[in-house]
């Protein structure tokens, strides 16, 4: 009896130890999993920052043009204000000779001459336009900065919120403008779509990846013809759909099979990390339970289609 008890006890102890060991293993695996999750979101974040970094030169370029003409207009305005003030003073001066019409006439004549010399008529006619143009410049600058702010939303990158993806597409087009504007025209057909529960920062990153890929595909061609990037959104009964297509070269079958794989790239060394589309896939499929696929056939646009459910969350 005793020996039997002893035997059972030993057995129990053995199983208990095994359970403990297994629990330890489980903990370890959980830790590892957390690590993987953490480094995964770090990779996402890093790729996002890298893409913003790559865009920085283009964005600065986009800003320098309006800043350039606004500041030049400002300098002109400064100069013109002085000229106008001078002419006004000259006219005021005329009143001092109210008793000497001959002298007044002379002075009046010389003022008119001076006006001509400083192109006063042009300056006055142009005044409204100068202010209007400068205002346009300021609008251009604030539009870029607002889009950049919306786009980056670094602090709530993982957070989900109600969002209209049309806004995201518009912002992405503004900040990526310098990447496509010399090779492609944009055709937008953004439909009336409902807000969806999603992570805007992540979706914007997907749009950026696809739009920049399209721009690069169009710029690599050896022709002077401008390409087109077409962006369409619409709602179906349960989903919203976003199509981004371009009329660049057809994607080869072998490339199609691998294009969503991590580290797969057709770009020159140093030009691409090979992570872009795999990140896009992860964001759409894993993080938003949506769908992303690509179609590319001769004489048809290469088209990325993203579908996202309307009742996420």
């Amino acid at each position: 009896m005793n020996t039997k008890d002893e035997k059972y006890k030993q057995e129990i102890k053995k199983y208990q130890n095994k359970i403990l060991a297994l629990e330890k293993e489980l903990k370890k695996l959980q830790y590892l999993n957390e690590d993987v999750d953490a480094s995964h979101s770090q990779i996402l974040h890093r790729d996002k920052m890298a893409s913003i970094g790559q865009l920085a030169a283009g964005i600065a370029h986009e800003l320098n043009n309006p800043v350039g003409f606004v500041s030049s207009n400002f300098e002109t305005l400064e100069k013109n204000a002085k000229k106008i003030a001078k002419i006004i003073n000259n006219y005021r001066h005329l009143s001092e000779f109210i008793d000497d019409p001959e002298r007044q006439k002379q002075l009046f004549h010389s003022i008119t001459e001076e006006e001509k010399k400083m192109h006063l008529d042009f300056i006055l006619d142009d005044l409204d336009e100068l202010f209007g143009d400068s205002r346009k410049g300021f609008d251009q600058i604030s539009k870029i900065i607002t889009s950049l702010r919306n786009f980056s939303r670094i602090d709530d990158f993982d957070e989900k919120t109600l969002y209209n993806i049309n806004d995201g597409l518009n912002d992405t087009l503004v900040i990526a403008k310098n990447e496509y504007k010399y090779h492609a025209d944009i055709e937008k057909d953004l439909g009336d779509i409902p807000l969806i529960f999603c992570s805007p920062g992540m979706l914007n990153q997907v749009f950026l990846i696809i739009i920049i890929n399209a721009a690069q595909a169009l710029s690599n061609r050896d022709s002077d013809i401008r390409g087109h990037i077409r962006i369409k959104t619409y709602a179906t009964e349960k989903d919203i759909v976003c199509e981004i297509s371009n009329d660049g070269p057809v994607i080869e079958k072998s490339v199609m099979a691998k294009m969503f794989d991590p580290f797969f790239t057709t770009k020159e060394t140093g030009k691409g990390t090979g992570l872009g589309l795999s990140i896009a896939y992860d964001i759409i499929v894993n993080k938003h339970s949506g769908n992303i696929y690509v179609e590319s056939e001769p004489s048809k646009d290469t088209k990325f289609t993203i579908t996202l459910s309307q009742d996420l969350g």
Partner: protein
Amino acid sequence: MPIRVRKVLFVDDDPQVIKSLKRSMLDAEFSTVFLESATEALEFLKESKVDLVVSDMLMPKMDGYKFLDIVSNNYPDIMRFALSATTNEENVKICLVMGVAENFLVKPWKEEDLRGNIRTALALKEDLEDNRMADLMSNVKRFPVLPSTYYDVMKAIRSNQNAKTLADIIEKDATFAADVMKVSNSAFYFHGKETTSVQMAIVFLGIRTLRSILVNISVYKLLQMGSTSPLEARFLWDHSAYVNELLFFIYKKLTNHTLPENYHSAGLLHDMGKFFLMNALPDKYKQITDKLKNDENMNWVQAENMVMDVPHTKLGSFLLRTWNFSQKLQEVCMYHHDPLNSPVSDEAKRVMAIMKIADMLSWIMLKDANIPDVSDEVFEYLNLSQSDIQMLLKDFINTKKGGIAQIPKIISR
């Protein structure tokens, strides 16, 4: 003599930029034309005479790079400026190194800065358009042609090759390689390390300086192949290298800043006109040097004035323009003998004033006779006294670590 009104053509695809330029140039002392594409601009150039084009770089259809390249080939007399919104330093460098633009200005721009640069370029052009120079050039039987190594390197720079490839091309020519190493090991680069390979030298020097060195070496090699005395050519090459070093050294001492990159090879190239004389007009060169030999108190400028009516400064500037060097270096060639009365920016004046001192010290180190005069005006401008000069020379020689056997005596003025 009435001066022809100069014409400047601005090209930019952004209509707002064009409008703002139009407004700000309303009271300019030159006449202006504004166009919104490179193709329109090329059409316009077929019909009209233009002195200077100021072009945007990134434009749809034909970009500024291609446009300025065509202008450079088809209308070499027209000066070329880039006015770009780029933030990429490399773009600027490549553009200047390749000589696509002679001057690179960035957006946003300051009106006075833009106008000042245009004014200087037009003045420079005016000085280059000298009938007497055309006469002199018609006497030249053989215009200096740079060796193939130079063009191979340029081609490699243009196709964005790395330092390793450039080094490989240079190393094919042993004397070329040796001279590149020599210049890069001069104290003035202050890297604190000895350069041990051509590749390392390229990395340290940067492609702009590399290009100047190549031109300088090329010209020197041409001279050695020619009939003129190779010793004299070596002497002038040593002088150019010394002036370059001294310019870096004194600039740093006086301003506490490093010499601006635009001028990194100013010393090497400043006497290009003399090289040209030696090479292409050896008779004139001999007449001048004979005069100098006969009278040790005479300086180059005095002797030159007696022999020919076009100074070497103008010839040098002309050559640098032909070889597509930047406007800043063309200015140095043209005005380095009288910087303070030249139509150049304050920065250029300061650099060239310091160069006058460097020039004098270099001749003192190389020989005792024919030392050029430096006017009191220059000393005052730089706030320097005679004793400061003595100190500068001593300090400089100390950096040479026994490279110069003895301290030459300073000639009292």
